[in-house]
């Protein structure tokens, strides 16, 4: 039988639902299903729903893999080892409460375990308890945190941290910033200023895996206003299907490099596209 709109529709609708239930944004889910449809239209296949189903699933897996398996995948360990002389400067940005500070602590732990020195910059000079929170992580990890008083210029803190890293021969600077809504023009300018002053090697967007359709809005505007090189998806342990990973990858054409799987320092894993695909098609 030849695959056409009519015999594909029920299966494609089913898959669209699966994607939506996995928190893939509506616009992205529709694009994915369209790609699958165009890939399969006109193909000849043996009769039987199961045969068509296998073909549709395989086509979907292929489409998802292509969207998620973005190369190159920046690996902090190899980038830090390759950066001879100057420290690797990494800027973290993203919406309020999505896990930036905790993720920075996890990455610092990961780098230290691999013999790479780290200094933290507390460029969140706004939120109550932000400095104390990062300070406690720094103490636990045995690393220095550069911080100014509350209300100070976040760019100045970041700058001081880079100077400190250069003078002390520290390999990596991880810059924590305050959470913000991408709709706040002043806060977007604040991030741009930090980026202008320290010229980060990597700008990482940190997003909660439980986020729904807003992930597309957030990612698009953060990338447009400041620039995003890679994504870290947090709270994947909260039974999140993690559709935001697909939405953001597709919309920014940038890789998800890690997922947060808990609140402890070890709870950070390299992102595996197969993991996501398995969950979505579960």
């Amino acid at each position, binding site marked *: 039988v030849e695959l056409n709109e009519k015999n594909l529709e029920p299966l494609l609708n089913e898959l669209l639902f699966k994607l*939506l239930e996995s928190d893939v944004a509506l616009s992205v889910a529709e694009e994915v299903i369209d790609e699958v449809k165009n890939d399969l239209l006109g193909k000849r296949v043996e009769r039987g729903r199961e045969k068509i189903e296998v073909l549709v699933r395989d086509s979907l897996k292929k489409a998802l893999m292509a969207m998620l398996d973005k190369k190159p995948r920046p690996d902090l360990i190899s980038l830090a080892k390759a950066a001879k002389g100057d420290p690797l400067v990494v800027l973290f940005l993203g919406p309020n*409460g999505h896990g930036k500070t905790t993720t920075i602590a996890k990455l610092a732990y990961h780098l230290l375990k691999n013999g790479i020195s780290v200094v933290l910059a507390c460029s969140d000079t706004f939120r109550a308890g932000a400095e*104390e929170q990062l300070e406690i992580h720094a103490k636990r990890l045995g690393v220095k945190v550069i911080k100014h008083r509350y209300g100070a210029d976040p760019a100045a803190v970041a700058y001081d941290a880079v100077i400190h890293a250069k003078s002390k021969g520290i390999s990596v600077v991880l810059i924590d910033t305050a959470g913000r809504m991408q709709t706040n023009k002043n806060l977007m300018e604040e991030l741009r200023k930090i980026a202008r002053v320290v010229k980060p090697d990597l700008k990482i967007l940190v997003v*909660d895996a439980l986020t729904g*359709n807003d992930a597309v809005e957030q990612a698009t505007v953060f990338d447009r206003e400041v620039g995003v090189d890679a994504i870290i998806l947090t709270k994947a342990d909260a039974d999140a299907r993690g559709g*935001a990973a697909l939405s953001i990858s597709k919309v920014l054409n940038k890789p998800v490099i890690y997922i947060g799987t808990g609140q402890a320092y070890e709870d950070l894993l390299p992102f595996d596209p197969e993991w996501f695909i398995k969950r979505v098609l579960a």
Partner: protein
Amino acid sequence: RLRESLTSALRDLLKAPFVDKRVLEETIRSIQRALLIADVNVHLVLSISNRIRERALKESVPPGFSRKEVVLRVIYEELVKLLGGEEPPDISIPTGKGYALMLVGIQGSGKTTTAAKLAWFYKRKGLKTALVCADTYRPGAYEQLAQLADKINVPIYGYKEAGSKDPLKISIKGVKFFKEKGYDLIIVDTAGRHKDEKSLMNEIMEINEKVRPDEVMLVIDATIGQQAKTQAEAFHKAVKVGSIFITKLDGTAKGGGALSAVAVTGAKVKFIGVGEKIEDIEPFNPPNFVSRLLG
């Protein structure tokens, strides 16, 4: 005013010369898209569509109205019904009772900030308000709430005052401490947790049983997607959720997940958070929420 707010989802309906099955289906499709983009649960979107479909063409058109207006009213009613009606919720707190209000929710949803906002809100209404920090996991949790409490001149009780790092002990002693001092409202901030963290869910169950708060408020991030339903269900199973607070509605997220949270807990949304400052709190308004939902 409802017409303006529903226009983007219902442009074609309003342009149509009359409403027939085809126009209705197109209208329902655009409503579905708006609701899905707003993060309303997929199954809930389908059941809302069915309800609208059943009612829209069958309901009688009152004299002086058009079928179009009937359809608009049906859509509005079905959505507002999910929120428990269009009346703003009762947010009064009885005085002189040492009313204990416990905040629960997923990590990062905004509980600590919300605790301070609620304290500020009710203090302005003349209630003697206090804060209890029962989060001993998150680094700097006490300092965060203490700095906020200091800004609004509200007393705080935490691990320092209790001489213990046990959240259960702190909650019990903290509520008792302020009750005995005649405080009207005691807000208890707890650590973030989600349904798959067994020991943390057991902990909040135990705190709820031993402290017996007068109200448990679930704090939900407006950006949460399809998982809002199962997470709210789990919280409701563990502790009886009596009210809901939706945070971060100052962003672009529509908060559609909250509809499911309301549906599975039977609780009403009492307030929304519209910014990071302590005064960025508003009592919930169902019609405003619905019109924002439909974009």
